[in-house]
């Protein structure tokens, strides 16, 4: 990677802004105990529904818990679950994409049929059904979101592998008797790196949206853990009295997702500007 190009992209204002936005979230997640004035589960029923003030910067909820502290700690859950979902979906999607593209024929048809099928149930509904099976928790949300979103990786990786596998040096490796696994790991995978990085970085913001939606439906981390989506949904019934309970966690989600979206666009610009996703 040429330094000048990196510099060019880094100077793009939107990429830069996205990066700064993410830095805030990562700092909040890393240093949550230092930043949050209160514990995320610290209740004080006498102070419930306190409007934002010096002691509680973003007010308190129906149990008198500090909304700001809950949001700060919640960044850990949002990042962890989002990243976990993307790692799993990348693993499944890339593996199946390589198998489909490399071996072709029946295996390819079977895998393509599987992706069509996954796509014929709206993702969030299938994910809900899977969480119901696995019981609601942060980790299971990550798993279920991954299980319904890997197909986008498969489709793109498959096409890419189909074009790579006929390159002369890969054909030569075959003639030399290298095994399929060796060829895939040594020659095909390195060719896919930038595609995978771009796809994964674009998948991360949508994974955070999906996982917080599951949290909103109370299928994610359970009380008293501060899941952003769940804090928001818990506040809706008190919205006329204490709109801050729902407003701020939502803003935290938009902030994080927007940051990831802008950063991902920049990354794509840097690695492969012409790639269509």
């Amino acid at each position, binding site marked *: 990677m040429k330094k000048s190009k990196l510099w060019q992209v880094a100077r793009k204002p*939107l990429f830069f802004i996205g990066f700064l936005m993410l830095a805030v979230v990562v700092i909040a997640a890393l240093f949550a105990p230092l930043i949050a004035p209160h514990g995320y589960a610290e209740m004080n029923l006498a102070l419930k529904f306190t409007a934002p003030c010096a002691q509680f910067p973003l007010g308190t909820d129906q149990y008198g818990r500090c909304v700001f502290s809950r949001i700060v700690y919640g960044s850990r859950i949002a990042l962890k679950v989002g990243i976990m979902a993307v790692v799993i979906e990348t693993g499944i999607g890339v593996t199946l994409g390589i198998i489909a593209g490399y071996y072709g024929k029946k295996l390819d048809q079977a895998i393509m049929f599987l992706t*069509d*099928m996954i796509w*014929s*149930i*709206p*993702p*969030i*509904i*299938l994910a*809900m*059904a*899977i*969480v*119901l*099976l696995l019981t609601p928790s942060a980790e299971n949300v990550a798993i279920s979101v991954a299980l319904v979103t890997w197909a986008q990786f498969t489709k793109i990786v498959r096409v890419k592998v189909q074009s790579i596998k006929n390159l002369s040096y890969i054909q030569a490796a075959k003639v030399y008797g290298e095994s399929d696994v060796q060829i895939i790991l040594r020659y095909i995978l390195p060719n896919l790196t930038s595609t995978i990085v771009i796809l994964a970085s674009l998948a991360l*913001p949508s994974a955070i*949206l999906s996982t*917080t*939606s599951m949290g*909103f*439906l*109370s*299928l994610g981390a359970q009380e008293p853990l501060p899941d952003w*989506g769940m804090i*928001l*949904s818990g506040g*809706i019934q008190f*919205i*006329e009295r204490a*709109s801050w309970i*729902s*407003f701020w966690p*939502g*803003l935290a*989600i*938009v902030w994080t*997702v*927007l940051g990831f*979206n*802008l950063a991902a*666009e920049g990354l794509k610009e840097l690695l492969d500007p012409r790639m269509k996703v």
Partner: protein
Amino acid sequence: MSDMGKYILRRLLTGVLVVLCVTIIIFGIMQAMPGNPIDLMVDTRVSPEKVAELKARWGLDKPPVVQYFYWLGNILRGDFGTSITTKQEVFFLIKQRLPYTLMLTGAAVVIEYLVAVPLGLLAAVRKEKLMDKSLTIIMVVLWSMPTFWLGVLFIMEFAINNRFFPISGYSGLKSLVLPALTLALPSLAQIFRLTRSEVLDVMEERYVETAYAKGVADKSVLIRHVLRNALIPVTVTFFLNLPWLIGGSVVVENVFAWPGMGQLLWKGIAKQDFPIVQGITFVIAILTVICNLIGDIVSGILDPRIRVE
């Protein structure tokens, strides 16, 4: 048979196959669930004979494969079973709520296209200009918004600060405005992007250059040549988009207490009411397959190259 007929038949068969596989997935998930639906449905006062009778009716005394066909047969006859919590017929519950979900998603998809297509065209025509850049930024922001937060903002501004619309529930068409906007706005960014890039692609085609070279007025080139061709993929996504919106409506319905299927599904999941979850997932899968099928057929009609693929 004509090309088109063969094409439609092929897509239809694939659709049926997909529905069958989906039923296997749904059935599999529910099978793997702990507890027996009948034991959950009845309390201890029900006599063992009655339980056995119920099990026989549902085929629950048979091996799983047989059970699957029992279940499939029942579902195809419209017998989705009885809700564990409310004891009502699931078919009846879904029939009651389906129109509201369709109303919400229908309104949302219309808003999406009415807003996104003209804006996409505008951005493409003003490529790299201020208009294009600001629209693109607005769309990234919308795309990054969870529907449930947008819904909260709308409620705060248009139902509480200004009492223009009801906060929640359904009480006439006025209630539709906020949920439909909430569902439509975040996802219209995709259609905007697609329209913009398709228009830009078509504008580079030879026949467009020729039309310009022949001195055809800008406006009529845009409408007759560019828009007409660019809208083919955009029209196809109209149908592919519907299932997405139906999925999204699960969340939006819960923000606004909208009396649709999504809310029913969520309650069913919270209370582990399996027949409801099964029934709704099945209905939604059928709707999705139908939408995809219509999308395939429309694209086959609009673009003859697709049929022979």
